[in-house]
């Protein structure tokens, strides 16, 4: 869970920063989208880098989901009976939404790929016209709303996930506890907010 999570986290950070290029205008963004398809040329051929990246991400997502499923099954089995008096839970909201949040994010990724990568659900749907494709989707309020909900779920997921992964990988200690918590919060806010400004800007008419 921790290793695959870290891989996806790294990707998200880069992806989020890349998306912000939309504020530099249509040309800049489309050029960037095109560049993504030609990274590594001439050492690599055509979109090889992109495909390599897709392969790594797919493996990460599949392994992450599989271990989440196995872990959840094991944990539900280990605690079959609830207390009749509600437990006072100390854990934060983020901790308690890891499972549902993960499912929301997974559904989002499917929708997102159909929207911007496969373009099947995109209203503009012109290959290579990334800028117009993004604007056409986020001009619809409910797409933006779903997007924002998914990003909030993602932020919460990262908030607990980052810190939890640090403990799983044993890099966590009493001295680092505070810094890791701050790091988790900063990362979660940065990534969620960074992704959210794009659809909000589109809906507000700042990007069109």
């Amino acid at each position, binding site marked *: 869970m921790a290793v695959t999570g870290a891989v996806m986290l790294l990707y998200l950070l880069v992806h989020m920063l890349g998306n912000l290029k939309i504020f530099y205008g249509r040309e800049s963004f489309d050029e960037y989208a095109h560049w993504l398809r030609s990274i590594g040329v001439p050492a690599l051929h055509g979109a090889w880098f992109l495909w390599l990246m897709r392969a790594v991400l797919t493996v990460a997502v599949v392994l992450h989901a599989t271990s989440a499923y196995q872990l959840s099954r094991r944990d539900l*089995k280990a605690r079959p009976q609830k207390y009749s008096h509600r*437990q006072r839970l100390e854990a934060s909201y983020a901790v308690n939404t890891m499972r549902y949040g993960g499912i929301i994010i997974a559904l989002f990724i499917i929708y997102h790929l159909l929207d911007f990568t496969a373009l099947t659900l995109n209203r503009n749907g012109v290959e290579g016209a990334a800028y117009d494709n993004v604007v056409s989707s986020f001009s619809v309020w409910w797409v933006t709303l779903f997007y924002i909900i998914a990003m909030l779920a993602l932020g919460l997921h990262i908030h607990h996930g980052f810190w939890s992964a640090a*403990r799983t990988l044993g890099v966590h200690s009493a001295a680092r506890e505070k810094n890791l918590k701050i790091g988790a919060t900063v990362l979660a806010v940065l990534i969620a907010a960074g992704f959210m400004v794009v659809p909000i800007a589109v809906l507000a008419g700042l990007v069109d």
Partner: protein
Amino acid sequence: MNLTLRIWRQRGPEDRGAMVTYELADVSPDMSFLEMLDVLNERLILEGEDPVAFDHDCREGICGMCGMVINGQAHGPRDRTTTCQLHMREFADGDVIDVEPWRAAAFPVMRDLVVDRSGFDRIIGSGGYISVVTGSAPEAHSTPVPKPIADAAFDNATCIGCGACVAACPNGSAMLFTSAKVTHLNLLPQGAPERESRVRDMVAQMDEEGFGGCTNTGECTVACPKGIPLTSIGNLNREYLRALTKR
């Protein structure tokens, strides 16, 4: 004080069990929680009913026997306090108090509030020991231990094996208990010979017993009467990774 108690009654491992309500009058605020249950049991015996079965031994917070979940909290509402050290002044006149056994698949209920915690014994048996030369006690200064290490080992050694961490964990995980034992022994020179096999075997036994996996929710450390910190779990993971990469 007058109290309404709702207590889990279960005749044996196979019985389904249910919460049963008892009214208890004239409870002194200076009684411990277990003394309050003693008073209830005396009355039940006089009335010809079965007394409520619960575990206890030292009644001074050091043996770890007296676990029960009180109003949804392992060992009741007071921080860092075992049930035997909890006093009735923590409650108010007229309170309704729910008393339940530890709930975890690896801790099956034997009767009423008594659960079978022998899974913990088997985890200890798999690696929670050190190999020593038997005979006369060694000279205390023959193995110097730096103060910070001795302190950290001692903090982890205070775990009394009560099982509150498992009871509080939504995953029924025994990570806090196991991490306290591994951290305690792996920090010390006396524990060094079995450093790798200890962590590997204890984690394997923990999984074998049917305890759940840790998701770092942190309920355990809040419930722990000895304040074993979550950082011990980080240390267990570090020791485990270290043992995996070392033959």
